[in-house]
Each structure stands twice: as C-alpha cells, then as structure tokens.
C-alpha cells in the first residue's frame, strides 16, 4: 500500500512537471526524484517480501493495510514538507527574499 501510494504520487508529480512550464520554477522536479527514488526502494522491499510470503503478500490483513495506507499518506505529506522547505530555501522566484526585505525596510 505504501509503495502504491508513493508510485501514484510520483506519477502525478511527473505529469505536473511535464505539463506545466512553471514546474521548474516551483521545483516540482525535487518531488519527482524523491518519490521515484522511494518507489524504487520500496519496490525492492516488496520483491523480497513477495519472495518470502509468495501469494500471501497480496492478501494482507485489513489492519496492516490500513496502517500501510496511513503510512503511505504520511510519507507523501513528509515529501511535500521537504519540497516546501527546498522551495522556500532556493526561492527561485525571489518571493521570500522580497518579503523579508520589505519587512526590514
């Protein structure tokens, strides 16, 4: 479930990055790399787990599924927080710097 949610997040971010000309200014690429990197790592985790559990891997207990879904959403939220921090620190449009200097004047 965590893998699925992260893959969906990665695909949506990649679509946004491809579609929008402002995506580079918004640092959407950071989100794409981050979610694809995590998706690949969880894919490896899933393959090893599948090798161990075989078909049982696809029939998780409802509580485990709920926990994994909650974790997946939390992971996406953490990814978004990291992206916001990168966006504010790099400040590609200079809006943060403009706001700070306006206040100090």
């Amino acid at each position: 479930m965590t893998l699925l949610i992260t893959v969906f997040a990665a695909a949506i971010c990649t679509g946004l990055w491809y579609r929008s000309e402002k995506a580079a200014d918004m640092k959407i690429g950071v989100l794409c790399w981050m979610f694809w990197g995590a998706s690949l790592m969880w894919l490896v985790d899933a393959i090893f787990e599948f090798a161990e559990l075989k078909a049982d891997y696809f029939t998780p207990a409802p509580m485990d599924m709920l926990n994994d879904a909650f974790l997946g959403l939390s992971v996406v939220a953490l990814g978004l927080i990291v992206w916001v921090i990168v966006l504010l620190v790099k400040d590609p449009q200079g809006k943060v710097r403009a706001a700070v200097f306006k206040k100090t004047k």
Partner: protein
Amino acid sequence: MACFIVPAAEAVITTVASKILEAKEKNAVSAQPQGAHLETREKIPFSRKLKWLNAMLWGGVILLAFEHLWHGEIVPWFPFLTAATEGAEAVSEMLHEMMTVGVTMALLVTAVWGVIVAVVSAWEKRAARQADKAPQE
C-alpha cells in the same frame, strides 16, 4: 531493519563526488577562451546528471528512514538502530538485510539513473549531429 543505510552511504559518496566535479567543471569553463564554451552548450555537465542520482537517493533515504521510524526499527537516540539493542542475532539479521535488500535498492536506483543518463546522452549526441548538419543545408 536498516536497509536504507546502504543507499544513504551511496548518497553521501555521490554528493561529495558531484560537488568535486562541479568545482572542476567551473574551473574548466573559466579557463577556456571567451566564447569557446558555446561549442558545448548542448551538453549537460556530468555533475548535474549526478545530482539527479543524489536527489533520487536522498529522497528515497529520507522517506524510508521515516518508514523505519514508523515501524520502530530506528529511534532518535543512541544507538539509533533498535536491532543493536536486541542481541547478536538481531544484529546479524539486520546486517543480512542490509547486504541483500539494501544493496539491491542502491543498485536498482543507480541502474535506473544509468538508463536516464544513457537516454539523455543519446539526445545530446543527436542534437549535436543535427547542429553539425544545419549549416551545410
């Protein structure tokens, strides 16, 4: 248990490597005669390509570290790895997981990055060939 430590170690190495490469590339560009760098304007510096790998590795490591924290496999205090407090058998299991799952994670991310770099390099070569042909037509 701590599989993300292997890609994290790789991320540290590639980050240092990209910083060193970036500095070398900047020096090389500033040493060129004025206007000479225009010949290579279509080529993406390797340090930038290495940054794509850094972003995938660090992104994956941050999110996987959170997952391990969620499952109680790592803790924010010494010795950080829960398995380290559970005896030799747990430590051995953790090392085994790092050697299998962790190494495969690092290899897969690097392989995917390698494919991306190969595709981009092919595009660069094609663009250079087209630019060479253009003045003759």
